[in-house]
């Protein structure tokens, strides 16, 4: 039976971690699948690790793996760190802030099995995918950024920056050795390199719930950083 590891990098997720864990556990148990969650916590000052330990006592230490780190060291290295302890055949990366709902995981898994895909990504932009909480300006920026990256890089996927993905473990390990960028660009680089390796990529439409709590700001620095990132990926 295939086993699925969910990598959850956390920083100050004391409030969200138990809930997202419950939802992931519920989804996997209902679908009768073998699973584990790897919590990679970057020394959260709010007590996220204590919460993770409590969850271990509820779900078992074989289901909730806690792999802490000494400080805020970034997403890419968090995945690398988490991968070392993951015992699943497949690895899922997702956000812990409820923008990605675990209820889609059985669809990801089913599609992966049907097509033997190396990667399955959640798309906000194709088929019945969508978003909650985006005004017109946000849609323009996000769709614009996606169109720019898709056109320049020729990635052939509908959602280049999405971070709700399932990978074959070997595929993720291979890509993580090569990827060097951070943030949005990291997710794009994963896809760009996956294309170079000719990995097969399937897509599942998802509803992305943005910013359940609070507002996000997009500054000029972010925009310039994004453009530089896309440009750098032309030369990989």
């Amino acid at each position, binding site marked *: 039976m295939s086993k699925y590891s969910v990598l959850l990098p956390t920083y100050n997720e004391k*409030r969200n971690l*138990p809930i997202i864990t419950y939802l992931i556990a519920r989804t996997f148990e209902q679908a009768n699948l073998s699973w584990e969650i790897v919590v990679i916590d970057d020394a959260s000052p709010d007590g996220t690790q204590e919460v993770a330990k409590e969850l271990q006592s509820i779900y078992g230490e074989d289901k909730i793996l806690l792999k802490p780190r000494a400080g805020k060291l970034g997403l890419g290295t968090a995945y690398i760190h988490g991968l070392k302890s993951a015992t699943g055949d497949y690895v899922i990366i997702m956000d812990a802030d409820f923008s990605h709902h675990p209820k889609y995981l059985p669809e990801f898994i089913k599609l992966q099995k049907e097509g033997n895909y190396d990667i399955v990504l959640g798309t906000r932009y194709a088929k019945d995918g969508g978003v909650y909480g985006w005004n017109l300006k946000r849609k323009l920026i996000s*769709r614009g950024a996606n*169109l720019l990256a898709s056109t320049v890089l020729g990635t052939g996927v509908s959602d280049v920056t999405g971070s709700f993905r399932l990978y074959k473990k070997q595929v993720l390990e291979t890509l993580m050795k090569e990827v060097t960028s951070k943030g949005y660009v990291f997710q794009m680089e994963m896809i760009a390199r996956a294309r170079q390796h000719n990995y097969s990529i399937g897509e599942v439409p998802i509803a992305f719930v943005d910013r359940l709590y609070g507002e996000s700001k997009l500054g000029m620095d972010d925009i310039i950083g994004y453009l530089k990132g896309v440009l750098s990926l032309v030369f990989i």
Partner: protein
Amino acid sequence: MQRIQKIILYYVLLTILYRVTYLFDLEEPWSSLRPYTPYLFILAFGSYLGVTLLYNVATTHDKPQAYVDLVNDIKEAQDALKTKGFVTEE
């Protein structure tokens, strides 16, 4: 092949196409239009991107139900965790 190599290849192919138009005798107005074809191409491509962007924005689906379902799921999670002896913050 790297992406940059592909981009250069596209550029070279388009340039060849452009030059090929000069191998033929053409009538007006097509004949004097030839030097402008690169600019017309850029204009056409830019317009295509612009229209695609507007279309994409217009067809980005809103999912209000997803928010409702999520709020319910969070409530269910909080209740379930409470029964397992876990204290969650509201």
